[in-house]
Structures are given as structure tokens and as C-alpha cells.
């Protein structure tokens, strides 16, 4: 089977976030980037199928030059090949624009299974997976914590509220958006990294995908007008002073609550 894994490169989770001059996104220059945490679990899931001799795995990512690093990492971990969609025309796309780009790739490649994280650590929209499934005409599920592949179908446990699971069966081809923490993500070995240098990494543009004028900022129907630090209306009373002072106040408070 052929598995397509969609990866997004996002600012490192511990990166300091400064708002960009135009106020609509963060300052991305000089930031450290990493593969979106949710997507790493999707990649691991695909590589597990490859290890079992059941799948060919290719990774797709959209973005500027820096994205090459994420795709090289995926290749180093074991993906067979990668596609980098790189085109300034795509910059500023909303989730639907991103889904259109990935849908064009999926239509060219006809994978049996598309795996990706259920959301990104930066935008947190959780929008692209179901959109992509709709555009390609595939069944899908989200928040998958267990994925079992059978002949012609995929059965998933998806996480719902309060720790309960919903079991859903999807006919192949299909799309599964995974929850974080569903497996132990491997590291790229030195041997893997060396081997990755010889693996194919194709670069495509919006025009290559027949999407000229359909994606990018001008086509976006949802736009972030402004980002800001959240208003801290009734935030916590912050205790100041030495560790001893702070600890003393905490003990007093715990006593007041009748818990000590």
C-alpha cells in the first residue's frame, strides 16, 4: 500500500513568540522550527507499516526553503521519498488553500492511506485533514489513537470526551488524522540520515499542481487580522519575593483552605 504523510513545519514549542510588525502573525526570522508534534506520530505510524513490509511511504510538506529540513528528517527516519511544495504564491493560504494543495498531490499520487496530525501546534485550526478528505472524496476520521489496517479498510479508535473511544471503520482509500502520543516516535539514525541524502525530494509549485490563482493570501476566505497577548483580566495574584517568602505565603494559603 501507498501511504502519504502530510507534515507541517512549525516554530519550536519552546520558541519565544514575538508578534511581527504587521501584527497578524509572529516574527518567524531566526526562529527554530521543528516538525509539528502531531505529525511526527502520523509519520511514525506510517513508518511502522513500512517496517512491516506493507507500505511505501512518502512525505509532503508545504513552505519555504526551511521545510527541506523537515522533509530530510522524515527521509532520515525512513520515508521513501518526499515532495516539497514551494511557491511564494501559496504563502498566506488559509486552511482550505493548504487542503487544496495537498488534494492536488493526493490526486496525482492516489495513496491508499493519508496520515497526518489532527492539528498544528501553531495555528491550532485542526481544519486541513477533514477538508483534504472532502476535496479528494475520501472517508476520514480525527483524533485517532489506534489504527488497524485490514484488507480494504482501516479501523480506528478515536478519542472522544472523558477518556471514551469511538470505533469507526473507514473503507480504503481513506484519511486518518492522529492524536498525539499514540506511539513512540523514532529518531533518525546516522545511517538513516546518510541514506536520506540519496532519496528523492521533488519540488513542486502551484502551477505544477494546476492551482495558479486558487490558493495563497488573495484566495483566502478566513484571515487573521490581528494577534496579541491574551488579555489578562482576572489573572492570578503573583507572589513576589524570595523562595522562602513565596513558600511561606503558599503554606499560609493552604492552611486557610483548611487543607493543612
Amino acid at each position, binding site marked *: 500500500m501507498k501511504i502519504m504523510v502530510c507534515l507541517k513545519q512549525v516554530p519550536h514549542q519552546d520558541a519565544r513568540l514575538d508578534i511581527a510588525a504587521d501584527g497578524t502573525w509572529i516574527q518567524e526570522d531566526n526562529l527554530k522550527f521543528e516538525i509539528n508534534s502531531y505529525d511526527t506520530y502520523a509519520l511514525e505510524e506510517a513508518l511502522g507499516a513500512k517496517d512491516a513490509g506493507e507500505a511505501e511511504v512518502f512525505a509532503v510538506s508545504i513552505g519555504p526553503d526551511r521545510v527541506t529540513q523537515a522533509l530530510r528528517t522524515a527521509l532520515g527516519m525512513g520515508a521513501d521519498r518526499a515532495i516539497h511544495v514551494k511557491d511564494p504564491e501559496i504563502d498566506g493560504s488559509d486552511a482550505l488553500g493548504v487542503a487544496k494543495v495537498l488534494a492536488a498531490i493526493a490526486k496525482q499520487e492516489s495513496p491508499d492511506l493519508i496520515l497526518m496530525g489532527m492539528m498544528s501546534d501553531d495555528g491550532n485550526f485542526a481544519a486541513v485533514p*477533514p*477538508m483534504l478528505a472532502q476535496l479528494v472524496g475520501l472517508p*476520514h476520521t480525527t*483524533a485517532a489513537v489506534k489504527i488497524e489496517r485490514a484488507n480494504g479498510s482501516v479501523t480506528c479508535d*478515536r478519542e*472522544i470526551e472523558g477518556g471514551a473511544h469511538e470505533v469507526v471503520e473507514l473503507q480504503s482509500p481513506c484519511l486518518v488524522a492522529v492524536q498525539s502520543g499514540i506511539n513512540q516516535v523514532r529518531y533518525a539514525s546516522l545511517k538513516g540520515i546518510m541514506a536520506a541524502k540519496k532519496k528523492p525530494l521533488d519540488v513542486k509549485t502551484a502551477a505544477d499542481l494546476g492551482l495558479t490563482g486558487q490558493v495563497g493570501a488573495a484566495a483566502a476566505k478566513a484571515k487573521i487580522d490581528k494577534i496579541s497577548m491574551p488579555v489578562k483580566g482576572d489573572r*492570578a495574584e503573583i*507572589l513576589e519575593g524570595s523562595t522562602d517568602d513565596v513558600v511561606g505565603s503558599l503554606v499560609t494559603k493552604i492552611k486557610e483552605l483548611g487543607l493543612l
Partner: protein
Amino acid sequence: MSTILIVTEIQNGSIREASYELASFAQKLGGSVKSLVMGQGVDALAEEFSKKGGGEVLVAEHESLANYNAEAASSAILAAVAASGADVVLISNTPSGWDVAPRVAAALDCAFVSDCFQIAEGPVLQRRVFNGKLDAIVSVEGTVVATMQPGATSAFEGSSDGSVSKLDVSIDAGALRTRFVETKQAESKGVDLTKADIIVSGGRGVGAPEKFQEVIEPLAQILGGAMGASRPVVDAGWLPHEYQVGSSGQVVQPKLYIACGISGAIQHLVGMKTSNFIIAINKDPDAPIFEVADLGVVADLFEVVPALTKAVQAAKGG
């Protein structure tokens, strides 16, 4: 003037609270309000909702809507959008809501905004990005499908003039490629945090699995409480899932919740913000956890927590 379609959700045989919250958002936005109730044998629920904020309620009855099915739900919502002429479609950001809403937006080729906690004229929507660290204001062009965060507003409690009509949905059950199999209830927990009076939780800031035993657990023990954790800790395999506090773990309401090295992603806050008293200890003064905490300490947890453990021990006379 907007035409708003509220997509309701049925849980355990009744329309869930979050759907009434959508009715509040619809009232606030203003416009003509219509609703969709989908399922099997749901006429009475539709009748009730029409009088409690739902306005003109469309009922989609189909066997494949009895349990959540993304393809079937998507067909029903699209039929309701067409029948109502809605330009604002409101869906709760619940496990089924977040699953179906983007699919509907893609089918409509329209704007989509998720997990919003506010909606105003425009419509302009407000939500968080970067796992709760920043606020974003999003504007849209044309029709919009928006998912709203459960609990972000209070449920609509007024009454409304309403009506109920049948919605024609043509779902060919045999053509669906998605099948609901079953719901598995949460397994009984080895650790039941919901009964603890005091919970001391650690997050990614704790840094390593052994630090939970060295730093977090002693404080929990001396206070006679339980130890909890945030999602990244469980994802990293530092602690088993039964310790997880949050929307996908245990939802807790202890007398005292002490969050150590937890930044406060929304999914964690949902699981603990109604605790009676919250103390947060975090190095980052901008961490969202301080917004729900009552008392905050901006410091290294490895200095404060062991010192607090000692002080509590001393206060207990031992």
C-alpha cells in the same frame, strides 16, 4: 443581516449544553436563527429546542445519523445549509463537531474558523493560537462555518418562537464509506483523580520522568493528595494515561490544584479550571495557566516545589 444555522448535537438522548451555548452566540450575533437537529426519533428534541433558542428547526431523520458518522452528518448539514440559506453555520467544537465542520466548509468552498470563544458582527471571530499562548482575531469573507469552544459562553435560557419542519436528506446508507462500530467507555482508572481533594500536577517543565518521583510526588504525598500530569507528559511516556488531567483525560475539580511546569494548553485548562483553588508555578510569566490560577509563582519549579514540600512537612510537625 445574517442567517445563522445552529448545528445541534445529541448526547445521551438530549440536546447537549453546548448546543444551547450556540443559541446564545446566535442571539448575540443577531439575525435570523435556524437550527438543525439530526438523528433518529428526534422530533421531541427538535420541538423542545425550537422553543429554547433554536428558532426554525429543521429535522434530519435517518438511520445513519443515529450515531455520529462524518459522511452522513456532513450530508445533513449541507442539506440544512441549502434549505436555510444560512451564511453563518455554528457547530460546537466537540469530537464530532471538529470532525465534521471542516468537511462541510470544504464542500461549501467557504471560510472556516475553529474553536472560537467569541463571535461579533462581521462576522469577526476570536480564538487562540500557539496552544493558547496568543489571541487571534479572524475575519471572514462570505459564508463561514465556525466551531465554538464549549463552555465559552453560558447556555441560552430564554424562550423563542419556533417551528419544526422536516428536512429532506438523501443519504444512501449503502454508499457510505464510514461505519460507526461502537463506543467504548473509559476503562476504570487505576488512579481516580476525580476523588482527590488535592492534586499536584506536573507538565513538560518537569523535564524528565524521574523528576516526577523526586519532585512532584513528594509534595502530593505530604499534602495527602494525588499526582496528576498534563498531556505532553503522558505523550512522552513519562507517566501512564491514567494520570492525565484534561479534556482527553480526567476532568477534575479538587479543593486545591497545584500546577507545576504546566503552561496551560486549552485542553488541560478544560480539565481543571473549575478547581476550587489553583496555584500555578511556572518560569514563563506569560503562561496561560496564570489566567485560570488564583495564586501564581513565576519561578523555577525545582526551587519552589521542594521548598514547599519541606515547609508543608514542617507545618505538619514532622
